[in-house]
């Protein structure tokens, strides 16, 4: 197969970028999208030209490194997968494919298709953890956790931190990312003691980092490689309301109904 690629090239953060056209020849249909790009890069390197910079590491959809907007869609045309899981058999022979980086205020471009996503780490540092010291934890079976509850927590915890949700959102909101972490920990007994502080701190950090607010358009869910459900955004909103109630000194409900609805 052969493809025409329009790839965003930008030498450095301050320089203006532009699309450059490349031809990819003799691409096997069993090749992954990234292997196809490797091929283009090998050709450039052999000519002592700078290869296209892009991120990847695990190449199996779990590390969250890969991050390409393909034909306008973060992670490309298929649902529930990351860029590295996309194979060329998905494209018709001769197709023209545009490739761009994540675009969001909170993700400045470093080079070509590589962006700086440290803002997501800083949101995590604001509260995406259980403050527990190493050592002295009680036996893992002391607190029983309903199977369904554990499964729902696991659904939320599957987020790979890729940032596609941000790239897909008109407001460049990180709501789905934050919702996934807040819900994962709020659903488990271990995360409950800090839930009030956590939700506030993470949402504040999200604003501080320049992510926008949620416009309820659900583009995030559509591109999420782990199919994180927007229902977790509802959980996040309820956690936020609950935190407000707790902080005002009124009693929050003894056991939250959020779990079931998440």
């Amino acid at each position, binding site marked *: 197969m052969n493809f025409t690629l329009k790839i965003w090239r930008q030498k450095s953060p301050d320089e203006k970028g532009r699309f450059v056209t490349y031809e990819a020849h003799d691409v096997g249909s069993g*090749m992954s999208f990234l292997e196809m790009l490797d091929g283009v890069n090998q050709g450039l390197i052999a000519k002592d030209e700078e290869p296209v910079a892009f991120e990847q590491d695990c190449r199996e959809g779990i590390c969250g*490194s890969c991050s390409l907007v393909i034909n306008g869609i973060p992670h490309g045309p298929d649902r529930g997968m990351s860029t590295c899981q996309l194979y060329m058999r998905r494209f018709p022979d001769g197709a023209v494919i545009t490739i761009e980086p994540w675009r969001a205020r909170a993700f400045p471009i470093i080079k070509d298709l590589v962006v700086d996503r440290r803002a997501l780490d800083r949101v995590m540092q604001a509260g995406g953890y*259980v403050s527990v010291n190493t050592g002295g934890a009680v036996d893992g079976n002391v607190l029983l956790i309903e199977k369904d509850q554990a499964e729902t927590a696991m659904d939320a915890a599957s987020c790979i931190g890729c940032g596609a949700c941000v790239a897909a959102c008109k407001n460049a909101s990180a709501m789905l990312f934050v919702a996934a972490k807040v819900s994962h920990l709020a659903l488990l007994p271990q995360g409950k003691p800090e839930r009030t502080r956590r939700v506030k701190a993470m949402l504040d950090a999200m604003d501080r980092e320049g992510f926008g607010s949620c416009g309820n358009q659900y583009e995030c869910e559509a591109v999420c490689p782990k199919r994180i459900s927007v229902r977790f955004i509802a959980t996040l909103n309820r956690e936020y309301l609950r935190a407000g109630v707790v902080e005002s000194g009124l009693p929050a409900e003894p056991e939250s109904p959020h779990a079931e609805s998440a």
Partner: protein
Amino acid sequence: MKLDPKIPAGPLETKWDRHRFSEKLVSPNNKRRITVIVVGTGLAGASAASTLGQLGYQVECFCFQDSPRRAHSIAAQGGINAAKNYQDDGDSVARLFYDTIKGGDFRSREANVYRLAQVSAQIIDQCVALGVPFAREYGGQLANRSFGGVQVSRTFYCRGQTGQQLLLGAYSALCWQIERGQVTMHPRTEMLDLIVIDGQARGIVVRDLVTGRVSIQTAHAVVLATGGYSNVYYLSTNASGSNVTATYRTWKQGAVFANPCFMQIHPTAIPPGDEHQAKLTLMSESLRNDGRLWVPKMAVDHRPPGDIPAEERDYFLERRYPRFGNLAPRDIASRAVKTVCDEGHGVGPGGQGVYLDFADVIERQGQDVVHERYGNLFDMYNRITGEDAYRVPMRIYPAPHYTMGGLWVDYNLMSTIPGLFVIGEANFADHGANRLGASSLMQGLADGYFILPYTIGHYLATAKLLPVGEDHKESRAALQRVTGRISRLLNAKGRRTAASFHREVGKFLWDHCGMSRNKAGLELALRSIPALREEFWRNVVVPGSGEAFNQELEYAGRVADYLEFAELLCHDALHREESCGAHFREEHQTTDGEPMRDDTCFAHVAAWEYREHAVPILHKEPLAFEFVQPTTRSYQ
């Protein structure tokens, strides 16, 4: 050089407790003034950095990815072992210890392995406390499954994403310590050399991968948690960034390297396709709990699998190893796959593959059960191959996966350079000649959460550590080594890409130092690698500059190290005139192809010392077995 493993005396069961009690502690006030460098944020590095931060040390933590959460550990699928005996199926610390020693084919240290089994239970508790959503039973208890090579159910898991969840747990602990100011995180920063001053590890040279700036970071001690080197084979199941640079360059500064040839080839990866392929994808070992491996009895049989009747199928693992069947340990299963393929029974392109068939379990328990257990793996397989494994059997083939070898460490996880500690897959310590499934995550977290934080304290409390700085002559010399190398790479301006050299050296190793090895092949490799390396430095092309974001420069530096390290691997494989665990020397096998171990001559750790322009020097750490008797490891 004498290798002193510093194993505490006394009964196995109490060594670690007594050792911990006799260790000196650093007073809380002094901890504030001590800086520790941790390189790596996988399970080992993230758990160590967060725990050291929590204890009050100032931690400087490094990784080459853009976020610590992306370390290669994230990709582990199957699970983590712990001797909890929640299933009441006869598990215990002693049994986990014994399984690990035996699984490692009696080439690991008893004291280390026993300690690993002891702390395993605590790891699960710690992870649960951090909010790791382990699989649960209907009654709410933690669920377990059994995993390759053992007969008890002691593996804890989070669907097929156990590594992800354990790493995110450790990463969240790290986030907390970053927020508290105890850990300073340096993502996108690569360690390129070690600084040794007055015989002690006192810092590292790093390159900021965004700006290209090379700088010096000094500290009171250095911890390497930089993972394994399977990628020396070019194609492996590891993330593409995993590499040998940190440990290899440290080796050149005097830390000895142990058992480099102990290289685990995992039996169940998706078979290789064309030459553009960049990596091999692992299909979790847990699939062997329910899938059955087979090949057509007739060689070069091109019928579709469904057309081959049962009596014309060879369920070769069940046939050769009736007691363990499809759950035979990795090394044994991989070799058995290679044997049937070499004899012409392989299926799929190039005859490199065997079937992993789920028809029986689907018939017995239904597709839903299989979907619940392995849904994401079946999806992954479908995406890559375009085939539906609920209908046609999967095809699998062995792939380089994990490195038991690594930098030599003593019982305290300290290398031969005082102040340099090595944890996780980067060290050689616990798995002998073969690692059991679900034991690496266990070891990484054992080292990082529960062992290193104690043992490093003793060193810091007792070592005499003078102030050192960036302008020390050893710091400058290390910096110069790094900048010199970078400009050599950029100035070679040849015609071949680094990847082409990587592919070539990888293929060489796979052919001559892979699943089976012989003297002639290893000698050929040792003659050929230097020539390839020489060509690399003459003919490699690396575009761009060193003072900017330059992924090809990073990669070329790693390939340069593979080209040297490959030789060390072959030296080690050549010296070990026996077959043990993953190391199979064709000269040493029984008439029916089973490996022959030689305890009289080779019950030792082979630890290699670097010599400039000369063959490395071999040191031997004898392995004494006081508590278990080495037996022939039979799974038949």
